Every structure is written in structure tokens, then in C-alpha cells.
């Protein structure tokens, strides 16, 4: 239990630091960016060819954007302390509602991609690692290298062309039905699955080469029994650690995939919040992403502790 408590406490401290740093940085960076915030908000509201300096003046007056920065920041901190993330400067809707809606779609997409990476990758890696240099191992290496080398954008377009246009099995874009989830999840998860397959493959090779594996065979276990008993748990630790580290890449990929597939989500919200200088939305989305990242890392810690009893002391 001591290891679990320590891991959770460490991540709780991280969460507090993330909250303070992200909110302060967002607020500061938006003010350091060139350009008039009121104009950018007006552009976000009315579209680029309808924005005028008159509409920007109206936005400035409405939102009090000419108040001192420190006053605006303190107002935001006071609201945050009460659990209020404020309202979007562009849409006027409550940030917590916007983020909850967008985050739900992002989590759905991310979970689908992670599931793919966790189910397909390690299984393929394990089989490849049991026969190093074999056909499956060689093919897996080539496939993994290709998938990792392909930018998410190109992979997404390729999937659209194959499954959407040529075969007609799946919709190219959209988000209203379950089938809409498949292609963006593949675009996001295939690269991660490929990499986790190689990590699992190497861990399998290491486990099957270890003295304890040879000793298990000497004890009279069949190879299949020895593999079942010793390999999955030993291979799980590096795979989980790798996925934990690569969750940040998943977040990056989400922004591209959401844009490409017309999928609503936090990536879309974040990029639009930056473009429109929508500080409350930017703080809300960045804070959510930061806290999710901490939560996923905490989950990874717990999963590793569950898989590896030696770390629980």
C-alpha cells in the first residue's frame, strides 16, 4: 500500500503545480502574443471578413479587456477558487460546459486509440518476440517503422481513401454515429500500437532470454507454460511505462486527428481558443489537458505497481 500512496501523493502534488503553472502561463502568454485581443475575439465571434475595428471596440467594452492584466488575472483566480472557469469570450457559454462536451469526445477518441494500442500492439509484439528474426518479427518491424514514420495527417488521409472512398465501408468524417469513431481512432492509435508492439517484442525477447525463463524450462514446464507464466507480466511493465511517456504524443495527435476528421474535441477547442485569444477557454482546456495527463500518468503508475509487485515496497 505504501507504494500506491506514495505514487498518488506524488501525482497530487503534480496536479496542483500543473493548475498553478498552466493557468498563469496561459494568461501571460496570451498577453505576450502580438495583436489586439479584442480584435481576435471579435474575429472568433463574427468571422474574418466581418470583423471591424468597431466590432472590436464593442467587444473590448463588453468584456472589459482594457482593465489592468493583474486585475483580470486575480478575477479569474478568484473564480477558479470557487470552481468557476468563467465563460468563453467568443461564444458566451460557460467554459466548464464547453470543456465537458469537448473533453468527452476527446476522451472517447483517446480511449479508443489507447485500447487499440494496448490490445493489438502488445499481442503482436509478444508473438514476434517469441520467434525473433522470424517472418512475423520481420514483417512487424517493417510495419511498425512505416506506421511510426507516417505523419498522422498522411495516415489519416490514407485511411479515408482506403476505407471511406475505395471500399466505402466507413464514413470519411463526422462524429454522430459509432462508425465515425473507427477511422480517427485508427489514425491516432496505429502508430502507438506499432511502437508498443516493438517494445513488447523486445521485452518478450528479454524475458525469454532471462535465467528465470531457462530455469522454468528446467523445472519441466513446457515452453507454452513458461511463456504464459513469465512473459506477459514481465513484458507489461515496459509497455505500460512506454505508453505513459507517450501519452503526451497522443494529445498532440488528437489535435491533428480532430481537425482532419471533423471530430469535436479539446484539440479543436484549444486551437480555436489560442487563435481567438479566448483566455478563459484556453485556461480551461489547457488545465483539463494538463490534469488528464497527470491522471493518466497516475493510472500508469498504479498499473505498473499492479503488474510488478517488486515496486510496491
Amino acid at each position, binding site marked *: 500500500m505504501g507504494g500506491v500512496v506514495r505514487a498518488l501523493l506524488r501525482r497530487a502534488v503534480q496536479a496542483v503545480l500543473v493548475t498553478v503553472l498552466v493557468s498563469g502561463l496561459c494568461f501571460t502568454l496570451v498577453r505576450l502574443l*502580438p*495583436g*489586439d485581443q479584442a*480584435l*481576435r475575439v*471579435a*474575429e472568433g*465571434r*463574427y*468571422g*474574418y*471578413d*466581418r*470583423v*471591424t*475595428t*468597431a*466590432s*472590436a471596440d*464593442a467587444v473590448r467594452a463588453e468584456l472589459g479587456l482594457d482593465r489592468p492584466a493583474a486585475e483580470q488575472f486575480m478575477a479569474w483566480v478568484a473564480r477558479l477558487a470557487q470552481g468557476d472557469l468563467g465563460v468563453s469570450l*467568443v*461564444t*458566451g*457559454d460557460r467554459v466548464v460546459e464547453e470543456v465537458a*462536451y469537448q473533453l*468527452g*469526445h476527446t*476522451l*472517447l477518441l483517446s480511449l479508443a486509440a489507447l485500447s487499440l494500442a494496448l490490445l493489438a500492439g502488445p499481442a503482436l509484439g509478444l508473438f514476434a518476440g517469441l520467434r525473433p528474426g522470424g517472418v512475423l518479427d520481420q514483417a512487424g518491424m517493417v510495419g511498425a517503422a512505416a506506421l511510426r514514420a507516417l505523419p498522422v495527417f498522411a495516415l489519416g*488521409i490514407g485511411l*479515408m*481513401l482506403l476505407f*471511406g*472512398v475505395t471500399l*466505402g465501408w466507413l*464514413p*470519411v*468524417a*463526422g*462524429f*454522430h*454515429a*459509432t*462508425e*465515425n*469513431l473507427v477511422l480517427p481512432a485508427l489514425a491516432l492509435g496505429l502508430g502507438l500500437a506499432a511502437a508498443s508492439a516493438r517494445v513488447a517484442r523486445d521485452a518478450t525477447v528479454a524475458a525469454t532470454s532471462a535465467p528465470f525463463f531457462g530455469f522454468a524450462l528446467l523445472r519441466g514446464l513446457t515452453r507454452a507454460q513458461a511463456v504464459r507464466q513469465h512473459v506477459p507480466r514481465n513484458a507489461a511493465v515496459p509497455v505500460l511505462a512506454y505508453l505513459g511517456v507517450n501519452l503526451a504524443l497522443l494529445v498532440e495527435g488528437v489535435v491533428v486527428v480532430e*481537425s*482532419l*476528421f*471533423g471530430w*469535436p474535441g479539446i484539440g*479543436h477547442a484549444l486551437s480555436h481558443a489560442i*487563435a481567438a485569444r479566448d483566455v478563459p477557454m484556453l485556461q480551461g482546456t489547457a488545465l483539463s489537458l494538463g490534469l488528464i495527463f497527470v491522471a493518466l500518468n497516475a493510472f500508469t503508475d498504479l498499473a505498473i505497481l499492479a503488474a510488478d509487485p517488486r515496486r510496491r515496497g
Partner: protein
Amino acid sequence: MRRPPLLLLALTLWPGLTLAQQPLRVVAPFHVESMEPSRDGFNFTRMRVAETLVGADDGGLPVPQLASGWTLSDDRLTWRMTLRAGATFHDGSPVTAEAVAASLRRARAQPGPLANAPLTSITADGPGVVELRTSAPFTPLLAFLAESSSQILAPGSWDETGAVRRLIATGPYRLVGFQPPFRFEVERFEAWNGGPAPAIARAVYESVARGETRALMAESGRADLVFTLDPAGTDRLRRSPRVEVRVMPIPRTQTLKLNAGLPQFSDLRTRQAVSLAIDRDGIARGILRSPAAAATQLFPPTLAEWHVAGLAPLRRDPAAARRLLAEAGWTSGPDGILTREGRPFRFTLRTFSTRPELPVVAAAIQESLREVGIDMQVAVVVSSEIPAGHRDGTLEAALMARNFSLVPDPIGTLLADFGPRGGDWGAMGWASPELIEILATLGRSTEAAERAALRGRASTILQAELPVIPVVWYDHRVAISRRLANVSVDPLELSYRIEAMRWAE
């Protein structure tokens, strides 16, 4: 009306829908963040959920919509708009003059063209007539009333703070699902009495930002009407048996805005030289893939009332450009860049990537200008940096796309662009008293011959003085599923005209 996303996991596909039961799927790049008419209202007028009092035909002339007719008083100060008899809002309540007046008064309080009209009052005169008074004769008012932010909503649409919470409008379709910023769903409003009942019962609007994705949606057959296609995607779509591609000119012109307050651009000869250096044919053919798009004047032929056929066309002539620059005192420096009084002819052009072709065209113009000795740097910024630079005087030049049908009569845009202090998206450091007087007179005049003459003169002044330099005219590129029949495309982009469509099979 947002559907909780995790419910998606529980959704299953609808099996075996017949064509007649399927929704019409419309895809365009425009997000729909809110129901506020001044922000995203154009999405709802295009999808025929909301109506304005007045519509516009392909040429921009006013046609009845929620108003069945109108009269203008002899002093040209009072417009009386007669409402369509028997019209109802989507909640079943009757469309009354008081409700319409309240909706227009609310629209006037929001940013938008109506806020700039010289209106003094908007009142109901009995149950079926709305009276609008202006402080001075203002003939473009009908065009202002046709703009999407002037759409008519029932008073129950907004809350006590004035925020629109429900879209209770009067169009042939009513809103039944709203998932901002990407999607909304509409279904036929059976009580609509503005024309024949729509043949298609349901429609879905989806916003997809990327042009590549929109083109692939059309090609896959999973979208029925796809708007704003990229030129590159259009070529591929033309080979698809599922899709018909229509390309039509629209009243949008790509223009080069020059700060005529700067020494190098205050001289008309240098503005003419810049115009003569630009390779419009190359840009139209190579970048827009539409040879007819090379602009010969500010207004494209689709704006028939403003396009002057006899005007000497803008052309490319680098040799003439060099001559004009020499006459203006510019001489070639050691690095090939022109100088005058020891200062090189160098400036920075701002453009933006919301329209992805703009930076590419900017690069082509940069190359053309270098050939005549002008060093133009390109800064790809966000679009609002252009009005910001206009305001603080730091803007030297900008490349942008100007839509002359935001208000169906271009006079609305011209008044904003070529006033005494120029305009955010128009002239900078340049003003023509004659043009200002012409535009003011056009706002007052109702006499057709006089108006035609004034429009011609305005176009001639803009062609001669070049406060903004036209580069190319835009095409509207639409992919239409071959399953659809009776499709027409609105060149003013006011409507997707879905109420007139039907399934072909």
C-alpha cells in the same frame, strides 16, 4: 441539445433507410458556435431555418421573403413592410408585426450591417405591417434587411439578458438538433407557407474545416452537397461518377490593399506599376485553376450592375511598370531593388491562411514585384491583424478576399470600404470626395438611370485610382451528389436552397 458523447457508444446504425427517409447531408467549412444571428446566423439562413424580411435574386435584387411586399414613402424616409399572411413561427405562434419589429430592434443592437443603417425607428403598424423610418433616404435598406443578422426570430428565442437560447424562426425547415460547433439537424416545417412544401424532409449540416476531408466526403458518397472545395480537390472530384462539380463566379474579389499614406504608394504611378507587375493570368491558371478568374476590374461580371464592360481591363505589362516607376523617381540599386532618395522600395504585405490560397498568391505577387525591382516581404498573420494595422497605421499592404455580397447590394460593403477614412478592408490613406459623394447619392437615389450612371462612375474611379488593386475573382466550387435533383447554387451564398431540392432516385 448536445448529445452526451459517451452515448455514441450505445448508438447503432439505422438499418435500411430508404432514400426518401435519409437526411440530406450538407457539408461546409463554417463552424456554428452559437445561435446568435450576428455571429453564426448565416448558417441558419443558408439552411433555410431562418428567414429575413427580404431575400435577393441571383443578381442581388430584393425579392420577397417573410415580407410579401413593401412600399417607400414619397419623402423616401419610411419603409412599410407587409408581412406574409398566415406565416407562423416554428413554435406555432403567429408572425406578428410587433414580434418582427422586436427582432429587428434586437438585430440593430448587435454588430452587423443594420447597426450602421440610419434607422430612427422600427415599429409595428397593425398586425401585418412593420414600419422602418430612416433619418435620411437610404435605398440600400432592403439589402441590409436581406443580410443574415437581420433574420427574424420569435421573442421567445432570447432570454432576459438578450442571449439567443432557442432558434424559433420562420423558415421551411426548423432546428431539431444542435451540436456546436460542428453539426445541426433540421426537419421540414409543415406549416411554412412561403412556397411549395420542401420535398426533402430532413437535412443535416456538418462543418468540416479541412478541404481535403470535404472533398473525400463528397467522393465517398457520404455527403450530398459540399461547399467551398479547394481547386486541387475539384479536379479529382470531376472524375467521380457519384458527384457533379459546379464552378461559378461569386462576388468575392482578391484584392491588394496598399497604404496610400506611405510615400511609395501615395503616387498613383507606383500603384499602377504594382498593378501592371502582377501576373493575374498565371495566378488564375496556376493557383486557382480557373483561367477566367483573372480580375480585369474590382467587380466580377456576376455583379452585373457594378461590372463595367467597357472599362480598360487591368493587365500585366512589366515594361510599362518599370517606366512608371522611373517616372516616379525610382532608380535601380546595386542589388536590383529600386531606390529613391537613398531608400529602397521595400514593404511588408500581411495576409492570412484562413483562405489557404492567399499565402500562395502572395508569394506569386512577391516574385512578380521583384522582377520590376520591388522588394515585398510576406507576413502570414491572423486576419484581424489587417484591420488592426489599418487602425494603428502600421499596415503597409495586405492581400485579402473581399466579399461584396455580405450585404446583397455591394453599396453596403463600399460604404464601409471607401469612406473618408478608408475602411478596415478597403482603402487606406486614400479618399476620393467624388466617390464619397457618389456613394452617398446612391444611398438616396431611387431613379434607375441615375443609379446606373453613378455605379459606372464609381467603378471607373476605383479602376483609375487603384486604392485597392484587384488580383483575381473567386469561384464558388460545389460538389453535388447525383442522387439530388433540382439543385441550384446561389452565387451570393445567401442560401443553400435545399427547400427546392428533391431526391433523383
